[in-house]
């Protein structure tokens, strides 16, 4: 009975399962004018929820944070730094600024043959392709 009640509650809350295939976005085409970098954090810092890197609306430490940078970042190429902040592209498509000292060139520790290419994804958002070789 409680299973049915909970299922009914979930339905009332509008929780609908998304098919696993919805997770399967893929890269469609490269994004011109951007290059890959990665966060300049240690492996331990990457696992630490308190060691996040803010993405800001302007190249200024006092400007509002749009959110947190992911492990891989699409930066403007050629590298465009203003006031110690690099211009980058947020997954929403917004231009953001990330402290340049918190970035380094992309190189996978676990897969040195991997490359990273900023790309438009099949959901229309910016993302990355990771070809090898």
């Amino acid at each position, binding site marked *: 009975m*409680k*299973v*049915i009640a*909970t*299922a*009914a*509650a*979930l*339905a*009332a*809350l*509008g*929780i*609908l*399962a*998304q*098919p*696993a295939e*919805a*997770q*399967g*976005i*893929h*890269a469609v085409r490269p994004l011109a004018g951007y290059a890959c970098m*990665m*966060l300049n*954090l*240690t*492996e331990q810092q*990457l*696992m*630490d*929820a308190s060691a*996040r*890197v803010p993405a800001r609306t302007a190249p200024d430490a006092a400007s509002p944070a749009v*959110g*947190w*940078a*992911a*492990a*891989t970042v699409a930066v403007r190429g050629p590298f465009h730094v203003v006031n110690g902040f690099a211009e980058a592209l*947020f*997954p*929403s498509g917004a231009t953001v600024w990330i402290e340049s000292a918190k970035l380094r060139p*992309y*190189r*996978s*520790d*676990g*897969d040195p043959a*991997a*490359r*990273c290419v900023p790309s438009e*994804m099949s959901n229309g*958002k910016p*993302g*990355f*392709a*990771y070809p*090898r070789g």
Partner: protein
Amino acid sequence: MSVTRSRPAAPDAAPLRRCRDFRTGFATGATAAVAIVLGLAPASARADAAPVTMSGVPQQVIPVYPEPGAPSFSVAPGQPTTGSAGSTGGSSGADGGSALDTMLTQSWGDTAASNATALGVNPSALAATCVIESGCQNVAGSGSVAGAFQMTAPTYSASLTAALAQDPGLATGITQGLAGQMDPATESIAAAEYLYQGAQSLQSAGIDNPTVLDVRGYYNFGPANGAALAQADASATMASVMPGVSAATLAANGIAAGETVGQWRAGVAAKIGNAAGQPVLVG
């Protein structure tokens, strides 16, 4: 734990759809009854003056477009039909409902589901966590890890404090101190809060509506790697998407060399079924 309870294969989506159908049918039936009472029904709908006998068995409906998640039927014209439970994916045969079923069969499961809902977390997401971590069994772990949700002591304490600050009413009846880790109903509060924080972190990284699978990446590999995983092409290798993680650490987390994001997702989904694709946040 294997649950063989008989229920629809897609418990979260199907009841809502059926509820809408029921309401529509009820309204239509009531309208027709009023029309008949008023004598407004079309002639073709009125009762025949004489009994009519059928010629042969009724024509059977043969499904052409199967409804996702609905039982599948094999129809042989003129023969009795039987249904079989539908499969919703996941090599274990699990679905979002069975993860939830597994948790709800525990004495504390109903309380845990209520705690999740109170904190704005999908109970199926909480259930998926305990299924993966312990099979929803209240067990000890290594170091300070303990309980059905296998949280470390510091994470448990911090998350419980945050949850109780958000909803002080949840403090009623909890087990105080670190002993609460081994009280699943109490630990569920901290685990739900941790899921909530993970989903919020992913939202802050540009993930619109984080799923259980997305938050699992956060849970296992941290916020920056979790955000990268949630946006990744399934064909990319785990090592390429999380470039700051060494091969040794990946191996220690059960990630084989060359394993793709898609393979990792499938592995998680095999344990929790279509709960993997459900949103973590509700309300």
